[in-house]
């Protein structure tokens, strides 16, 4: 057992923190539940600067524009970026699309897509869910029909985060409706400028603008297919297990938790005794401190497994499930402790912590991304514990 980073990893973390301290002043840091266009663009700029130092894709091989390090360094980056509350961008390309192309892509696809991701120049969105398809993703309906040198796509994708900033969509489509459901799906990358793709705005409760993405006779060249036709389900599921540490999400919440503890130690929104002097509050803070530590370790366990060459599967679900529920426990606890002040949004002069608690409570309703909590429990039980289906 070793819970330390190597000296080189420590040095990387120090350099990264110097960079973040200099480049990300507090007033530029993201506030939960309030993602402005300006903040998103600021996040993109930071990514470009990280890429100049080969830090953005620090865990990728150098041949694809990465830093040539590993999952631990990628985890350090995620944890610190999350803690500094740098508005998030580029994560789907870096975490999901890039690794998939490295494994299943042709050389041409690697050359075309990977360096641009590593440089922070492109944004991806993900096209998995559909209006009628969520947890049972294998039943997806968006059709891709082969027509000569092209695939023709018809249907729609739902809950497209980053749609309005993305250049490409990484998507699953049905290529063989006759086959057993998981065996008739293929993986594509679609340029969102392609004619026939349109977006319908879908505002989220966390302040983010997502979309429903409509495909109306969208023609994609064959070179947009990633991996083998009709093997897309298996390709996608394999690569979903790559970037699953969840350290960014953990650190994002941890920062607000730490701020909240400091707030409770020194003050009370109504000017009375510091909140932390109340025994019930102290107790709740300690419980969440324990929860945060557990969450952190479960995330690092995933990163460590990756660094040792293992492919985390149920372990990633353990970390993700724990994180979704711990974030909600913290949000509920902080809302309760702040009483009516917790209902004040960012912008209200009396809102504690710039409204971050109210914002994180809305963010915590995100109990479904990358699988609902129920789906993660199914994965842990069936794949992790080998329980019967």
């Amino acid at each position, binding site marked *: 057992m070793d819970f330390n980073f190597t000296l080189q990893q420590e040095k990387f973390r120090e350099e990264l923190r110097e960079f973040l301290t200099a480049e990300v002043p507090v007033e530029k840091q993201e506030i939960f539940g309030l993602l402005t266009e300006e903040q998103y663009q600021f996040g993109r700029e930071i990514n470009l600067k990280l890429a100049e130092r080969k830090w953005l894709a620090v865990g990728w091989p150098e041949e694809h524009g990465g830093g040539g390090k590993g999952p631990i360094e990628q985890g350090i980056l995620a944890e610190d970026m999350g803690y500094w509350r740098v508005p998030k961008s580029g994560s789907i390309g870096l975490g999901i699309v890039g690794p998939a192309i490295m494994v299943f892509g042709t050389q041409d696809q690697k050359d075309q897509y990977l360096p641009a991701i590593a440089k922070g120049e492109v944004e991806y969105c993900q096209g998995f869910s559909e209006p009628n398809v969520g947890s049972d993703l294998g039943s997806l309906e968006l059709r891709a029909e082969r027509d000569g040198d092209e695939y023709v796509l018809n249907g729609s994708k739902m809950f497209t985060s980053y749609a309005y900033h993305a250049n490409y969509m990484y998507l699953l489509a049905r290529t063989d409706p006759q086959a057993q459901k998981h065996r008739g799906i293929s993986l594509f990358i679609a340029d969102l400028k392609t004619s026939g793709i349109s977006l319908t705005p879908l505002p989220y409760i966390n302040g983010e603008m997502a979309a429903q993405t409509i495909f109306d006779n969208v023609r994609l060249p064959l070179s947009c297919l990633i991996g083998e036709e009709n093997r897309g389900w298996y390709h996608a599921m394999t690569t979903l297990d790559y970037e699953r540490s969840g350290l960014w999400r953990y650190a994002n919440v941890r920062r607000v938790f730490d701020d909240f503890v400091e707030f409770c*130690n020194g003050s009370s929104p109504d000017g009375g005794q510091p909140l932390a002097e109340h025994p019930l509050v102290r107790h709740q803070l*300690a419980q969440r401190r324990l929860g945060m530590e*557990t969450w952190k370790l479960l995330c*690092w366990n995933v990163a460590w497994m990756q660094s040792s060459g293992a492919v985390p599967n149920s372990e990633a679900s353990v970390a993700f499930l724990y994180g979704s529920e711990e974030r909600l426990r913290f949000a509920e606890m902080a809302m309760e402790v702040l009483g009516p002040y917790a209902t004040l949004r960012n912008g209200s002069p009396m809102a504690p912590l710039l409204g971050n608690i109210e914002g994180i409570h809305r963010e915590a309703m995100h109990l479904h991304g990358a699988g609902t909590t129920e789906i*993660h429990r199914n994965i842990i039980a069936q794949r992790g514990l080998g329980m019967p289906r």
Partner: protein
Amino acid sequence: MDFGLTEQEEILRHSAREFLEAECPTSLVRQAEESGEGHARELWRKIAGLGWLGISLPEQFGGTGGSLTDQTVLFEEIGRALTPGPLLTSSVLAAQIVLIAGNDDQKTALIPGVISGEVILTLARGDRLETASRDGGLTLSGDSLFVPYAGLATNIICATRPAIRAWPDTTLVLVDPKAAGVTMTSMESIANYPQFLVDFDDVPLPDDSVLGQTAEGMQALDLAVRRATVAQCAETLGRAQKVLEMVVEYAGHRVAFGRPIGTFQAVQHRCADLRVAVDGGRMLTYQAAWKLDQGLTADDEVSMAKAQAGMLSRLATEAGHSIFAGISFTVEHDMQLYSARAKISEANLGDTEYHLDRLAAQMGS
């Protein structure tokens, strides 16, 4: 960063599991419980022969000199098998006090015996234990509750309240349980766990009784308690892991409504939640062990591990009795052995609330 076990630790885990599966079946656990001693002498002798009682004690006294991580691996297996006997009390908690506070003579007199299993140490604590100087020597008076394995102990370490001005520090003294003025009464605990009320009625102490300096024992006591707390967490973890395996196995073949109950999500999700808690407990426990091995105080880490262990215990008990259902309500079924010991471990060395309080104090609040 490396959360895996070394090859040697894997071997230790494997051989400990194999040994205990063969030598410590639940029939033996039940015998030890029914005897009222909470001890299995033949097993104790074999365990000592394997060197387990000296796993983290120095080689110069006959120990293995292993790390706290080794000890954690071992105690996971000890918990898993519900191993009876004062392993934690004597070979970890009390032995560490002697090792940290004692002088060379005291260590030489006691530690080799702890390792061979012939010496059994226990610890008596409490506000009502007082040492006082009289006729040039020390005497001990007062009583202490919840003293584990006092009935088997060859020596009792008493953490006593020294002269009033030195409070809240403590004077650690070695007491012969057979000395005149020492009486003990079994406290009648869950699963016959041997806890005693020990009364000391003006017990004169020999000159070499004090471990370390008078009124300077707190530091040694704290450090030993921290190490023992990690072992207690490991024991809890091993037991919870075993309960998880038992319920998953049972749910795989117990049929209801025409299908194995393990196919029902209500059952699967209970198991998944226990798995999450087991994984969390493992990370927290090994982190605490590792930090102590690095010579760090690890106050927060130990408290977090122990607070979580209490919650893990409760979850395992609930999952076990809920999935095994009716049959686990019978004395004949083994689940009750796990849930009874879970409660003892939870209360031992500070429960969840106690450790959350400590944690809160560290958070500046």
